[in-house]
């Protein structure tokens, strides 16, 4: 036997597709189709109201129901979603965080209705709230009670649902928000430590080894795939260190760093979108090449990531990438191919060193929960630097700042524009269904279950899960569950990170724009003031944050209040703040519902400032938005923020009769 071949080919990783939209029934059909195509696990995308704990009839749910995921409002929806899928065999990953306890409760009840006991269930609830505060935005409660809910779930599942991964610490979203490899490692591991520290308060000390082994990770892999592979090796090494030194874990199996991946989507482009396929393939290599740090589960974005939602065919293409890699190539036939590599070891050392230092900084802040504001500001800063490098051409992005000329692309030519569009009628349908559900259930049982839930929430020593499962069984809705907890815990607004972001080193273009801002401000009589607003439940904050920071760096006064505002809140801010221009950012697909309303609200309040919009706006929606009064629309292809800013200054000048510069 030779030691450069494995005696037996490895089994491939779990292959998933992140999917769900419209309704539980439609999504169930989609899942069954995906499983038939050879997908080996489920990855559920919930819609934003479900993720943030609102029912379809809540003001904030407007335009968001069934859009970017499936709405699950009660056990009936969960049963429909999993209909015909044997839950004792399925491995289900749910991207659910603030409301994770609730969705797990619904899943347990749906399984029991299928005759499957909780002990047999396999899967993962993402359940990572710190990264929601930092990057993803679907939080609901303040940090302390949020951490308690997580600890409760871990403590509950470790004995009652032992095959479940109660939490999946995510660094994926951190990279999507701009994290460098060192930040990604350091913040994810610090986050893991914060969770374990919280759980330690709630379980028997003898269980900590088991708890440690149930912690899994969900990481990112960018296109610098050699360094990215080193990052995963470094994470494995540091995680083991944490287990040994901080929690006294000794069993090597329990100490193993287990992770799933979604590869980088932030770097996928709207221009020449076919290039994204190469990027995805290379990024997948980063997390599969070396056997010692290979992913356990992989899901891939699609070529049309920056255009809009993927259609089934687009997702199939991405699944086929995994299948070709796993089944056609020889990748799985060898032991770790980087063992003894000087380059790899050097990279791992370098990243581990950097990450240890950054973890120490987080520690000085009092741990990851206390360091949220610090980490958020650091991410905004890293992202500012990333965009600066792309704008200056220092970081090459093919098709964007190099080789931008292209033959016409046939990729997005079809009638559907190359993307999946969710029927806007879905929202009304879901509201009707919800009303029907409410009339058909046993009101007394619901009231009693909610009472039990409130009691459990108020008593910090109780575990939230039993009362949650009771509520699920009684027919409580997602919005009701979350409302009861919001009452008990209060609400929270995460820091925006923009105030602390360092000032950009001005380029010549920026100097010129500063002069122009100064000149136009003189003409206006006071400093040019912009409101950057994020209406709806959309948590994609990157664009808004970077626009806000850049506007400040060009000398504007900037009002930015963070994500998840209602249109009426934005109207009130624009009016009271006396801004010269309103910039709205929406990436979640609710622009057609929210923007015309918002503009009508502004005009009704007497705010005449022009409105510009940025985000994921399909070509077909641009004309209707302009008709509704939008002055300009920007999408990912407008990567040069200097150009956008120049437009905005000119727009304000023109609307206020400030003449062109001499």
């Amino acid at each position, binding site marked *: 036997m030779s030691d450069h071949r494995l005696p037996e080919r490895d089994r491939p990783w779990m292959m998933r597709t992140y999917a769900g939209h419209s309704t539980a029934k439609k999504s169930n059909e989609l899942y069954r189709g995906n499983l038939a195509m050879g997908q080996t696990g489920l990855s559920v995308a919930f819609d934003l109201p479900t993720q943030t704990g609102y029912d379809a009839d809540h003001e904030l749910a407007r335009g968001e129901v069934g859009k970017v995921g499936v709405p699950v409002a009660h056990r009936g929806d969960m049963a429909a979603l999993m209909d015909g899928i044997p839950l004792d065999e399925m491995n289900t990953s749910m991207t659910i965080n603030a409301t994770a306890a609730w969705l797990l409760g619904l899943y347990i009840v749906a399984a029991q209705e299928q005759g499957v006991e909780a002990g047999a269930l396999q899967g993962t609830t993402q359940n990572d709230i710190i990264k929601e505060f930092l990057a993803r935005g679907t939080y609901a409660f*303040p940090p302390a009670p949020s951490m308690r809910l997580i600890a409760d779930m871990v403590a509950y599942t470790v004995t009652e649902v032992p095959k479940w991964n109660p939490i999946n610490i995510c660094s994926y979203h951190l990279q999507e928000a701009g994290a460098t490899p060192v930040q990604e490692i350091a913040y994810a591991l610090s986050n893991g430590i914060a969770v374990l520290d919280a759980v330690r308060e709630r379980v028997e000390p003898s269980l900590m080894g088991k708890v440690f082994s149930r912690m899994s990770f969900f990481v990112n892999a960018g296109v610098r795939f050699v360094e990215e592979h080193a990052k995963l090796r470094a994470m494995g090494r540091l995680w083991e260190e944490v287990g040994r030194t901080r929690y006294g874990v000794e069993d090597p199996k329990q100490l193993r760093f287990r992770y799933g991946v979604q590869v980088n989507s932030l770097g996928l482009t709207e221009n020449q979108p076919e290039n994204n396929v190469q990027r995805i393939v290379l990024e997948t290599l980063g997390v599969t090449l070396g056997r010692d740090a290979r992913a356990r589960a992989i899901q891939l974005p699609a070529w049309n990531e920056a255009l809009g939602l993927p259609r089934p065919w687009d997702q199939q293409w991405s699944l086929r990438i995994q299948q070709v890699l796993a089944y056609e190539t020889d990748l799985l036939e060898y032991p770790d191919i980087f063992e003894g590599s000087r380059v790899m070891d050097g990279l791992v050392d370098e990243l581990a060193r950097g990450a240890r230092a950054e973890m120490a900084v987080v520690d000085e802040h009092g741990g990851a929960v206390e360091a949220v504001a610090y980490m958020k500001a650091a991410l905004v800063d890293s992202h500012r630097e990333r965009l600066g490098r792309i704008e200056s051409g220092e970081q090459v992005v093919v098709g964007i700042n190099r080789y931008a000329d292209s033959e016409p692309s046939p990729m997005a030519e079809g009638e559907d524009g190359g993307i999946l569009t969710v029927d806007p009628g879905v929202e009304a349908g879901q509201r009707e269904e919800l009303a029907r559900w409410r009339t058909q259930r046993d009101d007394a049982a619901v009231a009693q279950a909610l009472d039990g839930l409130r009691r459990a929430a108020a008593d910090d020593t109780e575990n939230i899960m039993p009362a949650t499962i009771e509520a699920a069984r009684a027919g409580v809705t997602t919005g009701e569950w979350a409302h009861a907890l919001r009452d008990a*815990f*209060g609400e929270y*607004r995460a820091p*925006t990170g*923009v*105030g602390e972001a360092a*000032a950009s080193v*001005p380029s010549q273009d920026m100097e010129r724009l*500063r002069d122009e*801002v*100064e000149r136009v401000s003189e003409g*206006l*009589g*006071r*400093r040019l003031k912009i409101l950057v607003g994020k209406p709806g439940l959309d948590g994609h904050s990157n664009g808004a944050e970077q626009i*806000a*920071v850049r*506007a*400040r*760096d*060009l*000398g*504007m*006064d*900037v*009002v*930015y*209040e*963070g994500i998840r505002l*209602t249109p*009426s*809140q934005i*109207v*009130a*801010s624009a*009016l*009271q*703040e*006396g801004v010269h221009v309103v910039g709205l950012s929406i990436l979640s697909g609710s622009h057609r519902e929210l923007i015309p309303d918002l503009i009508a609200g502004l005009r009704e309040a*007497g705010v*005449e400032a022009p409105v510009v919009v940025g985000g994921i706006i399909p070509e077909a929606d641009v004309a209707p938005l302009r008709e509704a009064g939008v002055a300009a629309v920007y999408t990912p292809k407008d990567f040069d923020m200097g150009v956008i800013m120049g437009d905005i200054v000119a727009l304000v000048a023109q*609307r*206020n009769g400030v003449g062109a510069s001499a």
Partner: protein
Amino acid sequence: MSEAPSGADLGRRLRDGDLSVAPAVLNLVESRPAQEAGEVEALLHEVAPGALGGEARAHVVGVTGPPGVGKSTLLSELVRAWRERQRSVAVLAVDPSSKRSGGALLGDRARIVSDPADRATFIRSTAAGDRLGGLAPATRAAAQALGAAFDVVVIETVGVGQSETEVAEVADTVAVVVQPGSGDVLQFLKSGIMEIPDVLVVTKADLGTVAQRARRDLLATLRSIGERATQVVCVSSVAPVQGFDQLIDALDAHRAGLDLPARRLAARRAGAVADFHAEHGDRGLRALGGRRAALRALDEEDPALEVPALTRALEARAGAT
């Protein structure tokens, strides 16, 4: 764009208690050409004691303290508590400007939760610009104007070192917010670097006994320097929220014990000197014999005059135009 209402018009509407003109009032006082054209003076004239038949009704409260201590979060709860008591509230939040670009990220608003449909709450963020002292140039004028219509006008400013002084010149009551466990304020009080605040607020009481200990230390320090009037209140602005009834009582008590006309008059005179200084610099001030002399000179002017008129009086004395 629709024609902007005149300063006098806005002033009259404020006098009639029309809260909806607040945004337009702020746009006006922040706008330089309006100052030059006398519009701001016209506005302030309409809300000066002469026109009102007495001092403006509002309680002008200054909230200051080091960056990040929790001023805005505190205001969020205070605004709620005031609104519960049916008092209309205007918040003027001042954020620092970037020295490099002149721009500013105005972030306080995000922390102050209010009902967008509530017409009796007004929140405006302003950049401090290059004016030292923590107050935006327009903030004094805004406070004076809005004071004619709102029950409470509250100014949030970042207090680092000495800038509370300037807030004290504008507000009837100054509340300094301190972080439990930070010794700076004790030092500042003892050494006289800091003016004695009217109310001291120890925030983050939810974090436990450190807040109570901080309160005791502050009271001891105040006693040691002979200050017994200053109240010290512990609050928590996050759930479980606590201490706001006491805080409102403390603010009200201070205001009730105040010689309001004297404090407002002092505020207007200090404002005039500050405006004069901003316009004519140190050299201008020297021509008047310095700051104290300038203030003394204003003693001779009509106490009912608005700030721009007082500034003009100073200019006349200095022989400036």
